[in-house]
């Protein structure tokens, strides 16, 4: 027969005895392990888009879809190209039919819901293309809002999604001011551009950079002063998108216009 006093004694002894081996265990922080417990990373991936060079062919979108296994006909994409047309009377038109996967095959502007608008050439005052992709923000709101930590930023700045952990609540999609996130049609988890992380970490370029025939897209390491991308960003006039959100985006644009959304 065990008395109350004995029970308490054994409990305390048991806890004390267990405390020693348990103390040997460390609470695992995935970030720390990922960083290899090193001090600061020597890499910070950034992207540079020269909008003057973009012709809206959509090769980048096509290449991205194939490389990253986003179902080809699904109306979502990790990267896309937007077309902006400003008329002489100051009216702004913009579209991105199927994310410009097949390029811009007609001069008519896609107004959605199957409607198109034709703009006469002589009415156009300026027109240009703007490629879009994840900005790999320095202060990513999508990482902040993920309730289970399925999306995270690695030390070299890229924001990744863990498909095994994502619960599919869509909060990150809501939190992204750039609309780069969506649900993967097959995996049903949050999906986004990750600068082709599987490629860039092996010394290759992203699929879209490789596919661009005009060199409108470039990827680089801003911590490397000799990187050509770094040189351009440091010495030329570049813009970023939606800086008012305080996300500190890391995709830089040459030739950004005030009309770009």
């Amino acid at each position: 027969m065990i008395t109350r006093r004995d029970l308490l004694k054994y409990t305390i002894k048991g806890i004390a005895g267990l405390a020693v081996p348990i103390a040997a265990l460390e609470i695992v922080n995935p970030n720390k392990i990922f960083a290899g417990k090193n001090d600061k990373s020597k890499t910070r991936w950034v992207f540079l888009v020269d909008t003057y060079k973009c012709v809206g062919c959509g090769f980048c979108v096509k290449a991205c879809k194939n490389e990253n296994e986003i179902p080809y006909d699904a109306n979502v994409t990790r990267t896309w190209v937007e077309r902006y047309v400003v008329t002489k009377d100051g009216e702004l038109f913009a579209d991105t039919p199927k994310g410009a996967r097949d390029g811009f095959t007609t001069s008519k502007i896609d107004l959605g819901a199957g409607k198109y608008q034709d703009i006469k050439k002589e009415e156009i005052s300026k027109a240009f293309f703007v490629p879009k992709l994840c900005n790999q923000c320095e202060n990513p709101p999508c990482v902040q809002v993920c309730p289970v930590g399925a999306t995270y930023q690695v030390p070299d700045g890229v924001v990744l999604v863990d498909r095994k952990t994502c619960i599919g609540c869509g909060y990150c999609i809501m939190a992204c001011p750039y609309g780069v996130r969506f649900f993967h049609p097959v995996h049903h988890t949050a999906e986004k551009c990750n600068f082709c992380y599987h490629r860039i970490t092996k010394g290759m370029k992203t699929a879209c950079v490789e596919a661009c025939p005009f060199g409108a897209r470039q990827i680089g390491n801003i911590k490397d002063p000799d990187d050509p991308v770094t040189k351009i960003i440091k010495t030329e006039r570049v813009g970023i998108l939606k800086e008012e959100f305080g996300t500190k985006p890391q995709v830089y644009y040459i030739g950004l216009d005030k009309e770009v959304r």
Partner: protein
Amino acid sequence: MVHGEVWTIKELFTYPNEYIYWSIQIVMYPFMTGLVAGAFVLSSLYHVFGVKQLKGMARFALVFSFALLFAAPMPIVLHLQHPFRGINIFMTPHFTSAIAAFGIVFSTYGAIVASELWFIYRKHFVEIALPLKTKQDKTLFEWFKYLVFCALTLGVYDISEESLKRDEKAIKILAGLGIPVACFLHGYAGFIFGSVKANALWMTPLMPVIFIMSAVVSGIALCMLTYIVVMEIRKFLASRKKTVYTHLQTREEIGGVEINVIRMTAKYLLLFLIFAISLELLDLIFRGYTAVKSWDVLRSVIYGKDFTNIFILQYAIGNLIPFILFLMPGFTIRRAVVGVILVLFGVFMMRWNVVIGGQAFSLTFLGYMHYHLPIIPHNWETFKEGLGGALSIFIMPFVLFWIFSKIFPVFDYKESH
């Protein structure tokens, strides 16, 4: 097909990945938690602030709040792309996210409501369990009942005058503690939206406060409605002399109590309704007056595309008409029923206009998205994120309430205090 594509119609310039990702279930989620919080606040008005006239409503509201509590997380489960991973929010929360607080707030609140219920019904459990214990030749049902109530007593059979006094104290403390937690439970639902800086319509620090006020309004309204329905059933039974209750035997007695309780509760409903409307209008005026970058597109949504939803359905039908109905002299039960149904509808429309309205315009500020609620489902997704799913969620607390009221009788049990 991509998630969201079925019910989204895009117009003008939108980003390719934009769809209405947060659909009807995310409208239901704040609506249901609002009802939970509101019902609890109503019950606490009696327990904490000693509003004697609400005595008849207090216990009722608490049990109802408990039933609603189980229904509140269900919309999220139906909304998740991976519902079986939903438990990760509790197991591996990522605390910079507002949703991650859900596990803690929800379980704290659940614990408070459950323990308050236990203290209130402890005497009842003992009174059922003890005679069954001594009874010989128990039937199978009686065995079951005995086991359930025995477990519910948690081994405490002391129902002396002194210990019941102590219970009362505990109830008061729990009810007092519950108010801030209930407000937090719902305030944080507002925070989930209010803190999304990417969304021009959602981002305002007023959002949690607006949510709390409208939550209390909807909670009170639903309690009133259910209370009236239950009382009407009792009246009907009384008129057929089938009543099983110990007091309030005649139609007239029941009717007298009913109108008094409803009249009193209606006053609180109006009070919170005024707060809710004032805050919502303040938000609207402030947006128009400051007219920042997003105002052009917001104005076109608020005064154009969503005009009917916001000004006709929400403000006129959901707020103004019930306001007049409650304030007109010669208050009747029938009018109360119409009033509270309209109020509930108004609060639902408010949630709709926030959640769906917030996604009605594109992040480009140049395009729009229209939501088409799937009514006839053609697969699991269009059922759970369609009319069927929403209705199931709405019916769930009533079914639960019916089950819970077998264990926690809301009327016939005479209070010790």
